[in-house]
């Protein structure tokens, strides 16, 4: 696409330059500067709305690793990548993994798995070619998928009526699950190619690929699984923008 554009406006330039030369038998310094301005105007008009690709981003979530200090026994990390198209549309893909080993006097719960999400964001602000920074304020949608396994052992279940305290365990169970997410995100350019982002997600339409009477207590990428039909989550990301060629200026 870039090669086609290059050849197209190079050919246009050649045509334009040729026609101007044919009409003028003598060029001066002022005429050359004016000609250059005209040529750049042509470039700008040709390329206006043609800068489809406007940068690629690599995002690292730092909220989950920090939350590990507070949630006891669960470590999860997530990376994501997205591409800016017209600074309006941002196709994105997320990937993450979870390792969980929660132990206390009442149970031991082990689980590990991975997840990924695919989707896109739509930016509402700051999308003109003359913008100084690449901040965005966007909403988006994702489809998430997770594969995990889990096991409950040394579980103490208390039955107050029968006055029983039972120790039980389960086998290692694999699970595949999917869900739909709606999100809102803000990403601010902090310094050169470095950004900080904050994303709030609402997850819904969660479903298991295999019918089962049991369920995991936590799904990577989704969060705590329970009786509620929706879930919500937060990501706080550090982002790096891969350099891209910006619009030329006079």
């Amino acid at each position, binding site marked *: 696409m870039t090669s086609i554009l290059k050849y197209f406006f190079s050919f246009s330039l050649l045509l334009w330059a040729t026609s101007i030369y044919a009409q003028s038998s003598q060029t001066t310094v002022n005429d050359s500067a004016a000609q250059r301005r005209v040529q750049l105007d042509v470039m700008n008009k040709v390329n206006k709305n043609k800068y489809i690709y406007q940068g690629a981003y690599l995002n690292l979530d*730092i*909220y989950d690793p*920090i*939350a590990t*200090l*507070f*949630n*006891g026994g669960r470590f999860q990390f997530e990376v994501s990548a997205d591409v800016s198209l017209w600074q309006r549309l941002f196709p994105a893909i997320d990937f993450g993994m979870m390792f969980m080993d*929660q132990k*206390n006097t*009442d*149970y031991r*719960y082990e689980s590990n798995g991975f997840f990924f999400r695919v989707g896109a964001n739509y930016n509402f602000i700051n999308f003109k070619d003359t913008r100084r920074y690449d901040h965005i304020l966007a909403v988006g949608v994702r489809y998430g998928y997770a594969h995990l396994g889990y096991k*409950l052992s040394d*579980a*103490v*279940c208390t*039955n107050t*009526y*029968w*006055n*029983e305290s*039972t120790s*039980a*365990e*389960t086998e290692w169970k694999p699970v595949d699950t999917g869900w739909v997410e709606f999100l809102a995100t803000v990403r*601010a350019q*902090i*310094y050169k190619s470095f950004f*900080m982002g*904050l994303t709030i997600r609402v997850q819904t339409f969660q479903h298991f690929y295999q019918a089962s*009477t*049991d*369920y995991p*207590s936590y799904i990577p990428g989704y969060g*705590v699984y*329970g*009786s509620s039909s929706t879930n919500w989550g*937060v990501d*706080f990301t550090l982002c790096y923008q891969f350099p891209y060629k910006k619009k030329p200026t006079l």
Partner: protein
Amino acid sequence: MKLKTIYCIFSAIIIAVCMASCSGDCYVPTKARMGVAFMDSTTLKPYTINGLTVQGVGSDSILYNKVNTSVIYLPLHDNAEQTDFKITIASTVEGEQDKEYIMHIDHTPRPQLISPECGCVMFQTVISADVSPVMSDYTIEIYNAEVKNIENDIHLKIFF
């Protein structure tokens, strides 16, 4: 907006969210009880039994003592695959003895971790249910075999 302001806002948000994730309370039921509904086989509407007493066989504690109700919720054993309940229905005829029955439930217990705050609850899968001696003109239907920590959930229906 200045960079320092952006840093402060983002830091405050992430700290607030981390603290919110530290909640230590349990907000869901932590008991799994089997719901039994009494139904009128003609109208298919709830059927109220008067003077109903229910007690687990092997327990000294009475679950329901001479109540008038169309639904009862019964706790099953966590460490066994069968549970019996003694059901007594007060006689409406003077001089007649109360009717006693034994409800026998076969079930499979399954431990389930609800959450770190709520701990473990024993879910059950009901295999079969019967009443002895046989009540006249009744049928038992397993409406929902999975007994979980959902309040007011019905698992058996007894049609009179």
